[in-house]
């Protein structure tokens, strides 16, 4: 993952049908084939986006690789260059999975086009 993000998110990758699966429960839900660890593909696309209250930025549901859906905050790319505010269909880059509230990992995304 790029600089500025946290630890990489490791997903399960199916060698049989190429699905990416997270959380990795050991078997591919599509074909029940075995999964091997793979870093989550960093480029994804926003399925839908909304705002935090009080002008606190945006959050979205985005899809990465073949089958990994994640929810997290999305922020403007340093130096601009990408459309803002973010919208459905826009590409995002997963910066990483860092420790978040309540012990859950948070996913930080950056607008990418």
């Amino acid at each position, binding site marked *: 993952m790029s600089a500025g993000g946290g630890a990489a998110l490791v997903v399960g990758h199916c060698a049989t049908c190429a699905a990416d699966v997270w959380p990795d429960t050991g078997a591919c839900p599509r074909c029940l084939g075995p999964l091997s660890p793979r870093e989550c593909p960093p480029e994804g696309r926003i399925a839908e986006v909304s705002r935090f209250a009080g002008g606190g930025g945006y*959050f979205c549901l985005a899809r990465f690789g073949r089958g990994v859906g994640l929810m997290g905050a999305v922020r403007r790319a340093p130096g601009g260059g990408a459309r803002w505010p973010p919208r459905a269909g826009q590409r995002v880059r997963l910066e990483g999975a860092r420790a978040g509230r309540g012990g859950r990992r948070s996913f930080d995304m950056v607008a990418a086009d």
Partner: protein
Amino acid sequence: MRAAAVAAYGGTRFEAGPGPGGAAPLLLGAARDLFSRFPGADREGVDAVLVATNSDEKYLGAVLAQEAGLAGAGAALTVECMCGSGAAAVAAGAAYVASGMARSVLVAGADEAGGPGRLLAWDASRGSLAGPVYWASLLAAAYKRRSGATDEQLAAVPAKNRRSAADNPLACRAAGGRPPPGVREVMESRRITGDLGLYDCCRPCTGASAVLLAGPEEAAASSDAPALLTGVGQRTASASFAATADPSRMAAAAGAASAALSMSGLPPGRVDVAEVHDAFSACEPMALEAVGMAGPGRGAALCAELHETGDRRVNPRGGLLGAGHPPGATGIAQVAEVAAQLRGAAGRRQVGGARAGLVHNTAAGATSATVLVMEAG
């Protein structure tokens, strides 16, 4: 296979505050209310007890069977499906009756405010955005984008349902006895996210509901006009909200409704009264479209029209937005309301001439749904 019918129903009032420290006394309260409302209901004939709850308490089916004096119960167990537990338990109870495994089944649901059941801990894909308001905001944004629904149309949903709840003696009361908000007040309420205000969100609360299911003949002995369960449909699209293919539509609800309506043979246009799972404002029009009571993209306009005309046919009980949402009890309270409507016993909430009704109960960001079709006997 024989049909199942709602022979009796009851419940406790939903309260915003904490409960008695466990689901068992709530369940017993709902069962007591049921048997006192329907003194002809045959307790001796109850041979299954199903409990719907998100509580971590164990063996609640047997606990309720003992506490309610249902010594003849065979199966006594818990059904858990997060916010959809209630209707899922009714569907299971209907299957017990229809298969002949039980003559009559007591289905009771309860939860306490602050209890478990609002967060799916397994679903790590939501990251730290685990609370329901985040998926609900994304659903609302996606629905508005697809349908062109306006904020004013969506604000009519809580305005309508909180107004209806004022006529429901079991509904959770507004803090300080405030009157129901109007559309403008909903729109100006404190923002929870960019797409949801305070009034767009249902209130977690404490409460319990119960229904007694039986075959039509047995039900007729305890109720003057038992409501028949003529269609049952269930669909599970995923466990994780992040796996939802299209957040602007409720695919699980559409599948469940198609199955339930097909089983009953009733077209959606003949549904006279519906209880749909309005956990958040946008959920009601999305549900109406999914079950076929509104055309694609027309749900919000229908909700606004119902509000403006005072038409009570959708969520006459007040829905989750008006009545409150103890997850295990909600689906059962929805079934009880439709049964009361079909008996003509809903008082000020009565929808005139109601002969057919529908219940839609869902869970975990609309990833699964149960739809029930009910018809007057």
